[in-house]
C-alpha cells in the first residue's frame, strides 16, 4: 500500500521542519511580504471606495458590504500564509504531482456538477453560500507540476518527448477551463511561456507568440488593407536597408503570406469562431464608441472613470464614476478604475511601480534558488502575476480586450486572493529554506 510507505517518509520530514521553523522568520523575504500586504491593504481600501456612498455610509468593516467580506478573505489568507510557512517546504515539491492530479480531477468534477453562473460552469458550491473556483487553484498546481517536471527534464536539448509532456502539463488545465467557459482564466496559462523561456525554451516561440498577439490586436485596430500595405512597406524598407536580405526573399514572401493569411483568419476567427460575448469583448476594444451602452460600456466607462481622475485624482472616496457599478465588475475586474479616478495618474503610476517592484523582486528571488524546481516555480509566479497585471490594467485603459481576470491581491474576491496568496507564499516558504537546499 502506498500509504504505508509514505508514513515513515513524513516522519522524517516533520523532524526536519522543526529545525527549520526557527529560522523561517529570519529567512523570509520581508520585502515581498511588505509589498504583498501593501497591495492587499490598498486593494481593500479601494473596494470600500467602490461601495462607499455619501448618502448611505456603511462602516468599512461591515460584513454587509464587500470591504467587510474582503477583510474576512484577508484574515483567512493570513491563516493560509501561516500554514504554508509552517509545513515542511519540501512537501510542495514532493506533492507537486498529486496536487496537480487532484486539481485536474477537481476541475473535471466542477465541469460535471457545477450549475452555470453567468454562463460559466467554474464555480463549486461548498454550501453555506461559500463558492470556490478551482480554476484559480489550477494556476499554482500547474506551476508546481511544471517546475517539478523541469527539475528532471531539459528544454534546451531538442527533446521532443519532454517538450510534449511539458505542453500537456501546461495545456491540460486551460483546456478543461475553456470547457467551463472561463476563457479568461485559461489564457493565464499562456504566461508559462515566460518561465519556460528562462529555462531554455527557444526564444522563437516567445517572439512568434508576441508578434502573433501584436498582429492580432493590430488587425482589430487597423483596417486590413493599411496593415498589409504597412507590413509590405516595412519589409521593403528592411531590404532597402540591408540588401543581403534579398537573398532570403523567398522566406520573406513566405512570411508576408503567413501574416496576410493570419490577418484574414483573425477576421474569420472573430466573426465565425468566437461566441457572441467574446466577439463583443474584442469589438469593444476596436471601437467602444460604436455602442457605448452595449458591448462598449465597460471600456468606455472604465476609460472615462480613469480619464476623469486627472493628475492627482478626485481623492479617496470622492469618485463619482466608479460607484454603484457604473463600470460593471467594479470591485473585481475593474478595480483599477477606482485607483485611476480617485488617485489620478500619480496613484495609478504608484500602483504600477508597486507591481513592477513585486515582479522584479520575485525574479531575483527565483534567481537565487539552488534548484531548478524552485527557480522555475519562482518564474511561474512572476509570469502569472505579470499576465494578470498586463491584461487586467490593459483592458481598463483600452489596450487589451476585456478578459475577466482579476488584478492580483487587489481585486475583491476570496478565490482570487487565496490563489495568489498560495502561489506567492509557496515560493516564499521555499525561498526561506533555500539554505537547506545546498545538498542538491
Amino acid at each position, binding site marked *: 500500500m502506498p500509504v504505508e510507505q509514505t508514513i515513515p517518509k513524513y516522519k522524517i520530514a516533520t523532524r526536519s521542519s522543526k529545525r527549520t521553523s526557527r529560522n523561517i522568520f529570519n529567512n523570509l523575504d520581508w520585502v515581498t511580504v511588505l509589498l504583498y500586504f501593501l497591495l492587499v491593504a490598498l486593494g481593500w481600501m479601494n473596494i470600500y471606495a467602490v461601495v462607499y456612498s455619501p448618502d448611505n455610509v456603511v462602516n468599512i468593516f461591515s460584513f454587509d458590504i464587500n470591504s467587510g467580506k474582503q477583510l474576512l478573505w484577508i484574515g483567512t489568507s493570513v491563516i493560509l500564509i501561516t500554514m504554508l510557512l509552517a509545513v515542511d517546504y519540501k512537501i510542495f515539491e514532493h506533492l507537486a504531482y498529486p496536487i496537480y492530479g487532484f486539481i485536474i480531477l477537481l476541475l473535471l468534477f466542477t465541469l460535471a456538477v457545477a450549475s452555470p453562473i453567468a454562463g460559466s460552469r467554474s464555480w463549486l458550491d461548498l454550501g453555506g453560500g461559500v463558492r470556490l473556483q478551482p480554476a484559480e487553484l489550477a494556476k499554482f498546481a500547474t506551476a508546481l507540476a511544471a517546475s517539478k517536471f523541469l527539475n528532471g527534464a531539459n528544454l534546451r536539448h531538442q527533446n521532443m518527448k519532454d517538450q510534449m509532456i511539458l505542453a500537456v502539463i501546461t495545456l491540460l488545465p486551460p483546456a478543461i477551463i475553456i470547457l467551463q467557459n472561463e476563457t479568461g482564466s485559461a489564457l493565464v496559462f499562456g504566461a508559462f511561456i515566460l518561465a519556460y523561456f528562462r529555462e531554455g525554451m527557444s526564444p522563437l516561440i516567445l517572439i512568434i507568440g508576441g508578434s502573433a498577439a501584436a498582429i492580432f490586436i493590430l488587425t482589430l485596430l487597423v483596417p486590413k488593407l493599411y496593415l498589409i500595405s504597412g507590413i509590405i512597406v516595412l519589409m521593403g524598407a528592411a531590404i532597402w536597408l540591408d540588401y543581403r536580405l534579398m537573398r532570403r526573399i523567398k522566406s520573406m514572401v513566405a512570411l508576408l503570406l503567413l501574416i496576410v493569411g493570419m490577418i484574414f483568419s483573425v477576421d474569420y476567427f472573430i466573426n465565425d469562431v468566437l461566441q457572441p460575448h467574446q466577439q463583443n469583448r474584442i469589438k469593444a476594444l476596436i471601437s467602444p464608441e460604436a455602442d457605448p451602452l452595449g458591448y462598449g460600456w465597460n471600456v468606455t466607462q472604465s476609460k472615462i472613470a480613469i480619464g476623469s481622475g486627472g493628475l492627482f485624482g478626485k481623492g479617496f472616496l470622492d469618485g463619482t464614476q466608479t460607484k454603484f457599478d457604473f463600470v460593471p465588475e467594479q470591485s473585481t475586474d475593474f478595480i483599477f478604475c477606482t485607483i485611476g479616478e480617485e488617485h489620478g495618474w500619480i496613484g495609478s503610476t504608484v500602483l504600477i511601480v508597486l507591481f513592477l517592484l513585486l515582479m*522584479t523582486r520575485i525574479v531575483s528571488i527565483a534567481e537565487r534558488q539552488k534548484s531548478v524546481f524552485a527557480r522555475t516555480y519562482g518564474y511561474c509566479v512572476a509570469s502569472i502575476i505579470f499576465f494578470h497585471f498586463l491584461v487586467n490594467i490593459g483592458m481598463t485603459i483600452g489596450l487589451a480586450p476585456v478578459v475577466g481576470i482579476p488584478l492580483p491581491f487587489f481585486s475583491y474576491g476570496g478565490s482570487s486572493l487565496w490563489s495568489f496568496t498560495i502561489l506567492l507564499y509557496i515560493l516564499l516558504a521555499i525561498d526561506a529554506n533555500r539554505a537547506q537546499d545546498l545538498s542538491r
Partner: protein
Amino acid sequence: MNYLENRKYVIQAIFVVVGIVFALRLFYIQVVDSSYKQAAETNAIKTVIQYPFRGLIYDRNGKLLVENTPVYDLMVVPKEAREPDTLRLAKLLGLPFEDVRERLKKARSYSPVKPSIFYQKLTTQDIAHIQDNLIDFPGFYINARTARGYSHSSLSHALGYIAEISPKQLEDTAYAGYRPGDYIGKSGIELEYEKYLMGQRGVKHIMVNVRGIEKGPFKDGAYDTLSVAGKNLYSTIDLELQKYGEYLMNGAKGSVVAIEPSTGEVLAYISAPFYDPNLFTGKDYGKNYMQLLTDPNKTMFNRPIMASSNPPGSIFKLAHALIALQEGVVTPNTGYPCNQALVTCSHAHPAPTDMTIAIKTSCNPYFYQLFRASINQGKSSNPFKDTAIGLAEWRKQITTFGFGTTLGIDLPNEKQGIVASPAMYNKIYGENRWKFSTIYSLSIGQGELGVTPLQMANFMAIIANRGYYIKPHIVRAVGEKGKPLREYQKRNYASVESKHYAPVVDGMAAVVSSGTGRNASLAHLGIEVCGKTGTAENPQGKDHAVFVAFAPKENPKIAIAVYVENAGFGAQSAAPIAGLMMEKYLTDSVSTKVKWKEKWVLSRQYLNID
C-alpha cells in the same frame, strides 16, 4: 548556463516596458486628453434622497398625538433664476425687499447650479397664491415635504419637536447618516426615539447630463433603495387627561405627573407654563423659539424632570416613616409627643399617639423624633459618628425609592435631584463636626434635598404598589405590535418590605378623608384616595405647594404628584387639582358636584392666600 541566466534581464525588461507603456497611456488619457473629464461630467449620477414618513405618535387610547402634514419649500436654482424681479417676489412672499435680495445672495453663494431652499414652510394657502405667479420666475420651484402637525395643543414638553440638524451635530460621528437640512428630533420623545421615528431613507439614482438635465433612472433603478417609514410610537399618555390637566394648570407654574402604578406608564405629563407644539412647525419657528427661550416664566423648562432643586416638604415624612419601620426603630403604634421645643408645628392637632395619626396631622415634632431614631441608632458612642453612620444607611435606603438618582424615563435631560449625604455635610462642616441637630430639617423634607415632580409621582407609585416601582416611561410600544423596552417591564424594589406600608397608607387615607388633603377627596364617588400635602420652602419667594396621592386605596389605578410654584400650602391648590384629575381619569369625566373646585382652581385665588 550563463546565457540562460541573462534571460532574466529580458524578462524583467518585458515587465518594465509594459509598466512604462501603461504609465504613458495613463498619462495620455488622464492628463493630456481632457475629453474623458468632460464625458465624466456628462454621465454623472445625481442621488436624490427619498425622505421617509416620520413615525406617528399615538396616545394610550389610540388618539393621534403627532402626525405629519405637508409643507412646501420654495426652492431656487440661482443660475436658472438669473435676475428675478425681486420687488415682485418680495410682494408675493410678503417679505421685505432687502430680505429677498439677501436670500438670493445666500443661495448663490451656496451654489449657483444646485437648488437651495429660498423660503421655508409655506402653508397650503400661500402655495395657492404663489404657484400661479411662479411661471414668471424661472429657476424657482416648490418642493413638498412633510412636517410635524398636531391636532391639539398639548404635551409639548414631552413630545418635543424636530428641527434642522445643527452644524455641531453634523460634525458628530453619531449623526453620520444625516445631511445638512435634515430634520432631527431636538427634545422630548422626538429626540429620545429619533432612531425609530426617522425611518430609513431611500436613495434614488438619476443620470444627469452636464447641465443637470435628468436622463432617467440609472440602470432602471437597480441601485435605488426605497425609503422605509419610521415606526409609529404608542405613548402611555391619556390625551384627554393631559388636556384636562393643562386646562387646570393654565396660567399657573408647576408640574403634574400621573403614573399608572402597576405599569409605570406615565398618564399625564404637564409642565406649566406650556406652549402649543404647533408653534414649532410653521415658518415662524425661529421667532417663536427665541420668544419662548427668553420668556421669564421659563416656558421651555421641562419642569417634571428638570426642576430638581426644590425640597419635597412634608411628603418626605412618608419615606421617613417607612424607613424607620424597616429599620425596626419604631412600630406602627409608636407615639411621640408634639414637642414644639424641637421643631415648630404649624397648627394645633390631636396628640400623635401612633404613626397613622402623625401622618394625618403631619406632625413636625413627631417626625423629628422618628427620624432621629432612624439616624441615631447608637451604633457609635460618638454622636457625630453615629449620625454619619445613620445618615449613610438612611441615604442608601432613600435612593432605592428613586430619590437622588435619575429614574430613567424615556425623555432626555432628566435630573437626579439631591439627597443629603455624609460627604455633603463633611464638605460644609468638616468631618465629625455635624450631628443630628445640624441636619434635623431633613426630617420634615427641607434642607439638603431636591426632588423632581417625576420622582414624587414615582414615590407615590411605590407606596401604591406597596414596595416597588416600574421605571416611569412615556412610550409603551414601538411599532404596532411592539412591547415596552425590557427595562420598563422590570420591578424595582424599594428597600422597605411590603408589610410595612399599611400604617403609612392608612395615614395617607386619613389625610384625604379628614386631614389636610380633603380637597382631593373622591368620597362622592365612593373612591378612597390616599394622599399627602406638602410645602416646599422657597427662599426666593412664596413657598411651593405640593400634593401627592394615589387612588383607589386598594388596587390603585393612578398615582399623581402636583407641584404648584408659589402657591403656598399644598391643600389649597395642589390637592384639588390632583383630586379633579384623578376623578377625570378614573371616571372619564368630572361630576358636577365638584365643579366648584374646578372654578376655584381656575380662579387662581390660592396664589393670593398667605
